[in-house]
């Protein structure tokens, strides 16, 4: 393979490049905010956006391809897919937020405790995190579904616990970094008490990446939860939860592709939009720190 033309690269370009990337992101970012905004409104006030009742069965109109009257088509019971995607946002968002909140709570407790405590306790907590890591999210979720039965609460707990170790490790790293940084040492030298240092310096700084994790985590949690529904072990129909729609749509995919594609696109778009926003916040935070 021949060498590609050399791009002029110099040490000075770093900054410029970051802002250049940001500038490139902007139209995308606006779209991301629009998508997230749309789904948040859907979750809060679905009736405002949905053209039909998502549960309204109309057997004569079953499995209609997308038309002007039904922009995303109708499902096997003649229900409007667009309305169901809009109404499904509430359940999906709720699961995503709740699972992420649980996950971050566990991660915070473990991460902060490990980061602040002595070598021994840190080691023990670290091992515990390691144990949690050994359970892939889906496997843990299957275990929980087996034991406690399928349902929203099970999903939230399973996804929350399953995704916690990754965040716990990140938070621990952050706490350690802050703890060992110059200004904490300086605060100690100034005679500030340890609890005060923790409260005033370490925690606020360690919390900073949480916003990013929250946005990225919600998207991931929604993906996992709908995956379980896809295996028939999540939220059950007639709930319009996105994963439940995907599971039901799979039966009809060779005849009615829109049943599988449309709710899937909702998940992908939403996850993408959240990722874009999370990245943007991350860049801004890092920029602010420098």
């Amino acid at each position, binding site marked *: 393979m021949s060498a590609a033309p050399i791009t002029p690269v110099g040490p000075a370009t770093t900054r410029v490049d970051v802002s250049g990337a940001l500038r490139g992101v902007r139209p995308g970012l606006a779209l991301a905010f629009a998508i997230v905004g749309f789904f948040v409104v859907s979750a809060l006030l679905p009736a405002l956006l949905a053209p039909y009742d998502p549960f309204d069965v109309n057997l004569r109109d079953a499995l209609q391809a997308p038309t002007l009257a039904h922009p995303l088509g109708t499902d096997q019971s003649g229900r409007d897919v667009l309305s169901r995607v809009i109404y499904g946002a509430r359940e999906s968002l709720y699961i995503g937020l709740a699972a992420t909140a649980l996950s971050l709570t566990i991660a915070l407790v473990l991460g902060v405790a490990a980061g602040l405590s002595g070598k021994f306790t840190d080691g023990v907590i670290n091992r515990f995190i390691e144990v949690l890591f050994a359970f892939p999210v889906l496997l843990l979720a299957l275990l929980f579904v087996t034991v406690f039965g399928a349902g929203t609460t099970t999903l939230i707990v399973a996804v929350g616990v399953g995704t916690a170790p990754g965040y716990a490790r990140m938070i621990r790293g952050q706490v350690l970094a802050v703890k060992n940084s110059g200004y904490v040492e300086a605060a100690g030298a100034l005679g500030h008490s340890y609890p005060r240092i923790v409260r005033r310096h370490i925690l606020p700084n360690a919390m900073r990446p949480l916003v990013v994790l929250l946005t990225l985590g919600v998207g991931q949690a929604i993906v996992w939860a709908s995956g379980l529904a896809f295996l028939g072990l999540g939220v059950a129909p007639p709930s319009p939860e996105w994963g439940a729609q995907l599971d039901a749509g799979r039966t009809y*995919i060779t005849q009615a592709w829109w049943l*599988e594609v449309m709710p899937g696109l909702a998940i992908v778009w939403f996850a993408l939009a959240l990722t874009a926003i999370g990245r943007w916040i991350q860049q801004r935070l890092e920029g602010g720190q420098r």
Partner: protein
Amino acid sequence: MKSVALKILGALVVLWAAATFTFFVQAALPGDRATLLLNQDSGQIKKRTAAELAPINEEFGFDKPLVQQYADYLGGLATGDLGISYQKKAPVTEIIGEQILPTVWLTLAALVAAWVIALLLTLFTTRRSRVVKTLGSGFETLSAALPHYWLGVILLVVFAIQLSIFPVEGGTSLYGLILPALTLAIPLAGFLGQVTRDEFENVLDEPFITSARARGMGDFEVRWRHALRHAVLPAITLSGWALGALFSGAVIAEIVFARQGIGQILVTAANARDVPVVAGIVMVVAFVYVIANLLVDLAYRIVDPRIQT
């Protein structure tokens, strides 16, 4: 030597904790296991009498105190005995042994494919013209957001059923492995690609790259010989972690493609509350995970000679 021994000890502790956790979570299950067994065997739903349940309870030791069941379980684990499947009446070790190879092949194939895609993307699209760069990172972002189950169904329907390019049943052939492996590899490649890209960009700014270029080294060689080697470090660490995600994905891919493997067994067993099988698979996965991460530790040392212990 000491650090290796410590590492092995740590791994054992992780395995023991995983076993304990699995045992007690499953022991907490509501409903009656003996009833479940009888009803599943007959395809009936009904309440069973004590006389019907007694022989089953005795056979599987459900009537023993929990502590003893736990001790039996740990004792069995230590000798590689994962118990007898409630459903299949066969040793769990044997069942997993039969099923694990297809899953391992799928997981490894997916990991390799993900790395190849991610590296190609990084090598050829980082710091290129704006269009190429946007395409590269756009692909990464998009693919990282694709849910396995959705991607799998679409690949299956489009490439196997509609276009007939690939077999519909995954099977065990190499050809049949492609679609399931891509189902797992594409999202992972997006994820790995994002990480290596960030790192790659940073490395390209390092002084040693500038000096390499000053020595007249071509752009491709600079990227290939110098930059990449440093850029892949974080992604290697992530590969160990990715094993868990890959395994989760493998479960789904095996269901979508009706492929033999641990995923099929796991979902069936979870549905049937076949405790020994679910617990056994959890233990095997934990074991694989621990070993894999030890290997990643070693790999890291090989790639980055600065870390020497």
